[in-house]
């Protein structure tokens, strides 16, 4: 009987690994930018293209950079969460309108509400590449020194907001 124990143990361990593997989300690729300075950019503002928005303006503040687009379906899922967050005035949310036209972007914000202090237009997706964006929406938590502390891939949910983003924001603000 004892000789069958080892194959059985190996089987159970293997099955355990495979089971855990099944529950992981392969779309969540860890970003190499965490703990690194947020790539600097200087883009035209969505609502007033004559004005620029520079990421350096945000030095000294903890802020969220939310990558969105009017064509992005899951952005509609996180939108109410962002709207509620913007009303609480805990942390400023800035938008990066990724690969979108100005008209479509503005129309979507008119229709669904605008949670952003302002949005910058990344029309050709260049800044998106610098930030390693591969699935919109993505949200970055950036600290006072301009370092990326957290990246949320996919929609911000109530759960991720309360378990990760808000505690992290509070901690970074206290620094």
């Amino acid at each position, binding site marked *: 009987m004892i000789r069958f124990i080892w194959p059985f143990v190996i089987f159970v361990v293997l099955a355990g690994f495979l089971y855990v593997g099944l529950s992981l989300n392969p779309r969540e690729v860890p970003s190499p930018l965490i703990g690194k300075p947020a790539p600097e950019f200087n883009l035209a503002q969505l609502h007033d293209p004559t004005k620029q928005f520079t990421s350096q303006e945000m030095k000294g503040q903890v802020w969220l950079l939310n990558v969105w687009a009017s064509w992005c379906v899951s952005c509609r899922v996180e939108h109410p969460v962002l709207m509620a967050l913007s009303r609480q005035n805990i942390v400023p949310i800035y938008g990066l309108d990724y690969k979108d036209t100005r008209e479509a972007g503005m129309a979507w914000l008119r229709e669904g509400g605008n949670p952003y202090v302002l949005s910058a237009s990344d029309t050709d997706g260049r800044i998106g*590449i610098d930030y390693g964006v591969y699935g919109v929406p993505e949200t970055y938590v950036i600290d006072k020194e301009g370092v990326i502390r957290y990246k949320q891939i996919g929609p911000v949910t109530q759960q991720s907001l309360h378990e990760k983003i808000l505690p992290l924001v509070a901690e970074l603000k206290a620094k």
Partner: protein
Amino acid sequence: MKKVLILLFCLLPTFAYAGEAKDLAEDPVLEKRMIGLAEKLRCLVCQNESLASSRSELANDLRQEVREQMLKGMNDQQIIDYLVARYGDYVLFDPPVKSYTLLLWYGPFVLLLAALAGLMIQLRKRKTKIAEPHLSEEDAKRAADLLNTSKDL
């Protein structure tokens, strides 16, 4: 007139061909180099496709980015570093040997060695279990006789 018409007709397919060729890359050598590099890179949107074969929007942009960087004179390694800095090691189909990929690279060999060691131990054990059968002289003679008779048949 007729000759001119025939001549024009002869030119027709040439025009069509030239039109199609324009849609391809402006620089075939660069395009070949780009595809060669992009085949080693993973598209993050459709994860098991290479950057060369993916039709996703992001892959399109990244291929364009690679082309532009090649035009700027960057070598393949510099371009790979550029992409890894933004998207992580995950963009590489060949994961680099690092402390946390050691198990991935050498784990199979460790398993193979362990299996071989297990096999050796088993074989040794069996060797001691199966004692060499001892034949008395009489038995040996009988056996030899039997073998000889069967040979005659």
